[in-house]
């Protein structure tokens, strides 16, 4: 392996960046949310012991055959439709041949000449300016397994490796954009939008940390206004929005620097190293493997009928842009809409609650985004781990809304419900949080307080009515804060007159 010298910027590159256009295309791998693998019945559960989710098929034993998982195709069609793509009536699986120990058959079963879908687009919007990013193709393929190096953190210096094939055969959809992206920022927005769409469409869980969504980028630069395409560099391992942005920004400067110093950019594949924030050469074009693609003889062409496509279209979940319109119709403010749309689970929870709450949705939205989100983050739980469901959230809100408990108590109940499996009513009763509505009880407390503070009564009577606040506070305290201050005030005034 060649030793890679970190690239040194000798010229004042940033000032030159403006003289070049950047051309970026993204390849996104989304893990499809199926129960079983693409070609066998093994589970797709994440994080089990090595090789637990394997069988002869996904370990490439002699004599095994692949059979396509129908759900994976359905999810592929769904994603393609959501991205405005054309579903090809016939797509063909091919074998991509190379040797690597995480690839048990010695070839990956993927689609090559005839992908599942072609020619789509996604519009992205930054500061009110909309740009259309065309999508070239989307194809189905199987994932490879995982290697754990022994004796060293990484590949370098390892004394051996362990092969875990749990991931081998998990269905992926690869979505390839045209090189229509002009800036690292656009790339990030495009990836975010794509992820949101795929997550809302329930195609993938979009979890980048667990590798359910992965991204590679192709990037080249060319002098502004030039029609000559620059030399393309592929960057791998861009598995977070932050990495994608950093890697592309680094790469623009690196490439500008090379051109500025009169050298040529090498067509190659580079790896992003998060530790240094740099991209590192993996292999040049000459070293790129000859994959010897040919049609997979163990599978027939995948025929997708218009009926199938129609069925998928009919069952399409609500997509982010549709949800956005829906929220705006409900009167949710623009900023709040974007907040709700950051997460499918948040938006779904919101929708569920909305169907169960009393009063205007605008009030609830505020409570949901401020109080609920605030308490959730304080509790240390998240949407998946929290104990409350939409029933309980709506219950708490409705108790507050109807004046059964104060907003202060509502927040308290919420805090408990997030971490404990308990009905809000029980907490209200146990903690005695219900607002006192018995006016004779309030009146007797008022009398008690007035009797105990004769001097302040005198002050009031002398015309310094500000002292009323003191009395309200005292009554409130005596009743444990569970009274409407307005009622106390009315009774107080009545008694003082």
């Amino acid at each position, binding site marked *: 392996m060649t030793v890679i010298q970190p690239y040194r910027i000798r010229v004042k590159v940033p000032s030159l960046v403006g003289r070049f256009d950047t051309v970026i295309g993204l390849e996104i791998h989304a893990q499809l949310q199926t129960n*079983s693998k693409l070609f066998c019945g093994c589970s797709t559960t994440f994080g089990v*012991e090595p*090789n637990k989710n394997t069988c002869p098929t996904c370990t490439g034993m002699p004599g095994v055959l692949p059979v396509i998982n129908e759900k994976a195709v359905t999810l592929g069609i769904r994603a393609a439709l959501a991205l405005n793509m054309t579903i090809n009536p016939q797509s063909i699986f091919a074998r991509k041949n190379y040797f690597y120990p995480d690839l048990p058959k010695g070839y990956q079963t993927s689609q090559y000449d005839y992908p599942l879908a072609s020619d789509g687009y996604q519009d992205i919007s930054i500061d009110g300016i909309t740009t259309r990013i065309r999508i070239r193709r989307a194809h189905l393929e199987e994932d490879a397994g995982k290697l754990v190096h022994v004796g060293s953190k990484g590949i370098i210096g390892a004394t051996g490796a362990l092969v875990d094939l749990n991931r081998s055969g998990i269905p992926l959809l690869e979505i390839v954009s045209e090189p229509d992206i002009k800036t690292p920022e656009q790339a990030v927005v495009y990836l975010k939008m794509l992820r949101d769409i795929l997550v809302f469409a329930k195609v993938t869980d979009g979890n980048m940390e667990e590798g359910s969504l992965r991204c590679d980028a192709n990037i080249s630069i060319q002098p502004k206004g030039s029609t000559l395409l620059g030399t393309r560099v592929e960057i791998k391992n861009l598995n977070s929005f932050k990495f994608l942005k950093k890697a592309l920004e680094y790469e623009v400067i690196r490439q500008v620097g090379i051109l500025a110093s009169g050298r040529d950019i090498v067509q190659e594949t580079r790896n992003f190293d998060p530790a240094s924030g740099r991209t590192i050469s993996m292999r040049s074009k000459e070293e790129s493997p000859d994959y010897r693609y040919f049609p997979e*003889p163990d599978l027939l062409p995948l025929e997708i009928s218009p009926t199938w496509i129609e069925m998928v279209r009919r069952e399409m979940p609500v997509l982010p842009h549709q949800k956005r319109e829906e929220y705006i119709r409900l009167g949710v403010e623009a900023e709040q809409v974007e907040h709700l749309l950051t997460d499918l689970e948040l938006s779904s929870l919101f929708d569920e609650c909305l169907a169960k709450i009393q009063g205007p949705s605008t009030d609830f939205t505020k409570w949901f985004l401020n109080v609920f989100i605030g308490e959730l983050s304080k509790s240390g739980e998240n949407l998946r781990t929290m104990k409350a469901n939409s029933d309980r959230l709506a219950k708490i809100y409705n108790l507050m809304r109807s004046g059964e408990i104060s907003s202060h108590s509502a927040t308290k109940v919420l805090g408990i419900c997030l971490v404990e499996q308990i009905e809000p009513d029980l907490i209200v009763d146990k903690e005695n949080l219900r607002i006192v509505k018995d006016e004779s009880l309030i009146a007797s407390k008022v009398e008690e307080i007035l009797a105990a503070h004769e001097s302040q009564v005198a002050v009031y009577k002398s015309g310094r009515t500000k002292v009323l606040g003191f009395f309200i506070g005292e009554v409130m305290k005596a009743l444990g804060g569970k009274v409407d201050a307005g009622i106390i005030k009315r009774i107080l005034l009545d008694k003082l007159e």
Partner: protein
Amino acid sequence: MGINLTIKSAVRMIKTGQISAVDFTRTYLDKATAMNPSINAYLRLLPDRALHRAREIDRKIAKGEQLGPLCGIPIAIKDNMNLKGVEISAGSRILQGFRSPFNATAIEMLEAADAIIIGITNMDEFAMGSSTENSAFGITRNPRNLEYVPGGSSGGSAAAVAADLALGALGTDTGGSIRLPASFCGLVGLKPTYGRVSRYGIIAYASSLDQVGPFGKTVEDVALLLNVISGFDGHDATSLNQPVPDYTSKLQKSLKGIRIGIPQELFGEGFDEAVRTNVLSAITEFSKMGAEIKEISLPTLDYALATYYLIACAEASANLQRYDGVRFGHRAKGTKSLQEMIKKSRSEGFGQEVQRRILLGTYILSAGYYEAYYLKAQKVRTLIQRDFAKAFDQVDIIAGPVSPVLPFKLGEKITDPLSMYLTDVATTPINLVGIPALSVPCGEANSLPIGLQLMANHMQEQLLLRVAYQYEQNKRGTSDPYPINPRRLGAMVERDQVAPVEMPIDKVAELAYLVISDENKSSLSRDIGDILGYVDLLNKADIEETLPTAHPVPTAQHLRKDEETPFIHPEGTLGNAPDKEGNAFKIPPILER
């Protein structure tokens, strides 16, 4: 037991209690144990397993339970069919010691029919060969004359039945590997329609050509076996979802009105005179039986052998990439890096012929050669399919020889790969087209059997077996040969007409993860050069506007429901791994230290 005992009569004997399944099985096991050393038909006999199964069957008989159609019948299976818990090696050192974790569907069906698998038979390594001389575990001899090859690649299965060391056997046929040994050993052997029998659990050689089929002493026995192993299998996406008729039910029907086509290409130069005469006289018999004989022409047969070798080797090169020493099979000792381990394991584990075909297949799929070789072959495959389709518009059955030559002596062709390949000239077209074909004995020359090959259109096994059965029943004495105007088969070109083509062997070996020793390099280069020179004849084929054929029998894609079906690796582990840590496969470092 007599050599003439058939499956049909043996089933009757066992069912009626004339002999117990255990005694019957023991008789065959004893005979096989005694005779196998001189033939080497079996790599492994399975006495414990077979007797255990036989006892179960006797118990069923005693209890009066429903019995399967192959009740108590000793069957031999080829070494490329997975049989759970048993060592299966595809005739290769690279799989030596591999214990199968699952059953091939065809094997499950056999056992569900109460057949008894008594042993695993020898074969050319990964089914690559026509003589069973390419096995890592020794050659198999032809029981009819021990100096001769039994044919291949299913030579062990054929020899086992011919020597009556089993009543029937299963083999696989990728380019003639059932029909050729059936012909050489004087048996009936059938290659069914592609997709008729599940390929699940069959160790792949060339996926678009492989098909499982039966060997028997009679056509009726073959029909009985086919009844059992045919049918749809959800584990094989290329399996045909069509009903299975009773293949024995129409055997008695006369041949009146049946049209039999004789392709003049299969009687030209390069076909032994003895073969031609015998096959033609057999065909004369058909006209006496009420069939109509028609001369036909299949001009693209010229290209079939070259097309076959390109497609088969390309698919094989990919199919054999899983043998890398990582998860099972042979792993070379003392290697410092993963790459070295894989290369060394493969080079030590694969025999010469297998390496030759891997190199050839890798080369023709590589960048810059795909169109010239692989894609062209796929297009010519379309032409051949069209030729056969046209022929089947005019005739119901096509007849010809199985092999252009008589059985040959051990060692006669093994050093000359191209001449060995030419043995398959009449059988390979059938696999390219995916139709069913069988070999039925039609005579002898110098005491060596000759096989008549009958071919029918897709899914016409019933007709095919009926024609063969009628022929078999009527075969008495000889008659005058049917006159035919032979056309020289272009495929049988003279050797000196072939200009060898150079292949960058080092580069291809690198892609194929093989290490070629210097001493092997020149002979491999020469042999592959010869083959590449030979396949150049495809340049003459008119493939303009022709679409490639990747799959021989068009059928609907079968999809799985998204259901979890957990698999428990036998003994709770991935038992075949050469090295493990916990449940993970342990391998040398990716980078040399």
